[in-house]
């Protein structure tokens, strides 16, 4: 393992990075708590089969999320990866909408179409989590290009994991951003594993902050377990992007306390290493610092955490109460159906009498859908049955 991550305890020195105003400091702590409690609950809901597919939790990485994103203005853009529940929450997406998305409900932030890996909130300029590693980098450059084209001073924060630096899009996008002087900050959340492959086993150069240098992108590193340091580092990078049109690669060193996804036996790392990093829990460290600095009383710290838990309780209630998307909505939003065009966009071959997919909204659901199957699937997804394996679990068993 590279020097900078070999021994997390070496970095346990008291943060010298300034605290924000007390209200902001408490808000940072509270948001990190909200993300933590949300992720824990999502894990529980996954175990109860309320959530399907893959579930990638950001427990341990909260300081990178809050520190990085609080450096953004409301009119800036954020784009991230498949580990992005926290990015939606930090931008202000209601926790109920995020949980409902995980539950596959109509009230989800993407109406149940995207799921855990594909969060999105246009109104809050969270331009999405993406399931393809490195897929979001070119999109981030395009968003930054649009900000430049419109002659605004908005910047884009493009977040990705250490695994993404080995994708072609990393080099291509870094080159394009530097060449065109785009107002973008690349933030690599280096949690030291690309899925189950350790950093030094997936990258010849493990000093990731240097990976942009050959493309004309200077790098800077921060302790991603320290929310104040992360905030300070990303703030300066955003300033350079905004004011000087100079992209930066920020490497935030962090660690995910849980597996890559819920379907991860974690055979690639030791319990001792995990425990060592857990001692640097970003929420514990920052909370204690606020108490010691007199910004926060101990009982207020407990209260903030309790409120976060209660907010997550309400999120689960909201998600549970939200209906599954109607079968008639299956073909919604495949296309923007305008006046310009007509004809056969999508074709439904699943039912007798081949017809245009977009015509389904005008048809009786029982004529085009297997409603028995729909109702059975809804009933299964709605029941909390811990014994039932999810499709993603089975997929991994089959591969093994």
């Amino acid at each position: 393992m590279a020097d900078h991550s070999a021994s997390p305890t070496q970095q346990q020195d008291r943060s010298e990075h300034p605290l924000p105003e007390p209200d902001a400091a408490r808000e940072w702590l509270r948001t990190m708590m909200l993300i933590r409690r949300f992720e824990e609950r999502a894990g529980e809901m996954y175990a109860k089969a309320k959530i399907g597919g893959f579930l990638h939790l950001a427990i341990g990485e909260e300081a990178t999320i809050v520190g990085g994103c609080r450096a953004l203005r409301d009119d800036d853009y954020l784009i991230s990866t498949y580990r992005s529940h926290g990015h939606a929450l930090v931008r202000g997406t209601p926790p109920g909408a995020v949980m409902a998305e995980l539950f596959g409900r109509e009230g989800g932030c993407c109406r149940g179409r995207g799921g855990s890996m594909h969060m999105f909130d246009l109104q809050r300029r969270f331009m999405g989590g993406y399931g393809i590693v490195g897929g979001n980098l070119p999109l981030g450059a395009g968003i930054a290009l649009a900000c430049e084209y419109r002659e605004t001073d908005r910047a884009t924060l493009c977040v990705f994991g250490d695994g993404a630096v080995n994708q072609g899009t990393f080099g291509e996008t870094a080159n394009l951003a530097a060449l065109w002087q785009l107002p973008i900050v690349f933030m690599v959340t280096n949690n030291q594993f690309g899925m189950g492959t350790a950093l030094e086993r997936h990258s010849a150069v493990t000093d990731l902050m240097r990976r942009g240098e050959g493309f004309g992108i200077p790098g800077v590193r921060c302790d991603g377990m320290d929310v104040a340091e992360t905030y300070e580092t990303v703030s300066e990078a955003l300033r350079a992007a905004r004011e000087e049109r100079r992209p930066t690669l920020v490497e935030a060193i962090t660690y995910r306390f849980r597996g890559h996804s819920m379907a991860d036996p974690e055979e690639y790392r030791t319990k001792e290493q995990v425990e060592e990093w857990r001692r640097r829990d970003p929420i514990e460290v920052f909370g204690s610092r606020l108490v010691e600095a007199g910004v926060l009383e101990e009982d207020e710290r407990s209260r903030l955490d309790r409120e976060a838990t209660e907010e997550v309780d309400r999120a689960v209630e909201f998600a549970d109460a939200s209906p599954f998307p109607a079968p008639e909505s299956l073909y919604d939003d495949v296309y923007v159906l305008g006046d310009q065009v007509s004809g056969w966009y999508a074709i439904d071959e699943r039912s007798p009498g081949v017809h245009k997919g977009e015509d389904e909204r005008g048809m009786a659901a029982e004529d085009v859908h297997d409603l028995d199957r729909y109702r059975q699937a809804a009933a299964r997804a709605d029941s909390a049955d811990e014994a039932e394996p999810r499709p993603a679990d089975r997929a991994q068993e089959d591969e093994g």
Partner: protein
Amino acid sequence: MAVMRYREALNQALREEMHRDEAVFLMGEDIGVFQGAFKVTAGLLEEFGERRVRDTPISENTIVGAGVGAAMVGLRPVVELMTINFSLLAMDQVINHAAHIRYMFGGQVKVPLVVRMPQGAGHQLGPTHSHCLEAMYLQVPGLLVAVPSTPGDAKGLLKAAIRDDNPVIFIEHEYLYGQRGEVTDGDDGVMRFGEAAVRRQGSDVTIVGISRMAITAERAAQAMADEHGLEAEVIDPRTLRPLDLDTILASVRRTNRCVVVEEGWPHGGVGANLAALVQEQAFDHLDAPVARVTGADLPMPYSKPLEDIAYPHEAQVVDAVRATFGDA
């Protein structure tokens, strides 16, 4: 109305749309200083400047992805890829991103992106520069796919593509760039996607020609009328998504025979798809199986005589039509 070449018609469409809408801009490899590998963008850098006509590095996936990102926040990028073969490097951004973003984010965002690129054999460019891949894009829900075969359609459909709020794969053809045809002036020439053109009327057989093969089909139909007294109806769908299946079906119900002509590969091709749709919708009207004329099922060879027999010409179309009548 004016007569001009296919490439000039495309150039005019780009110029007019850029004048009409400040959000329209161009990105691509060698489209500016070099004026485009096929000169479609000639003069546009000089007219609109580097902000709106952007030469890019050779990074297809990222160029398309940057277009997707810019489109998501309100611009209308027109990305040129040098040939459709190079678009394979951008498949991730085209399919996983451009085509799926609106759906997977629950309709919150539009992706009004156009990706233009030429395809086609005939210039001895071998296996990496000569193929016709419209069938790959046809398969993807979320994309619109245009395959214009005349200068008028090239202009009218490109203007429509730029104004459309969906991601459009706009497939040109290298052979067609130099062909002349009538082009409508200004906004009168904006076409609608999903409207096939009946190039030639006839009652004996329906021939559907895709991209350049619409031209080949029309010539074959004329030869058949002259030599065999067969009157073929020739249909150019012009767009594959949305597809004007209704016009094709109406014709087949009258002629009772259908031949699909394409330059791409046979397996999973446009013809395979159309044959399935026609038999599903008009089985009782068919007097013969739907026939296909396609490019050869192989990587395109370089050598001229080999290349020449590896993609369809009029003679193969005539043979296929006659076979539907039981003539060998």
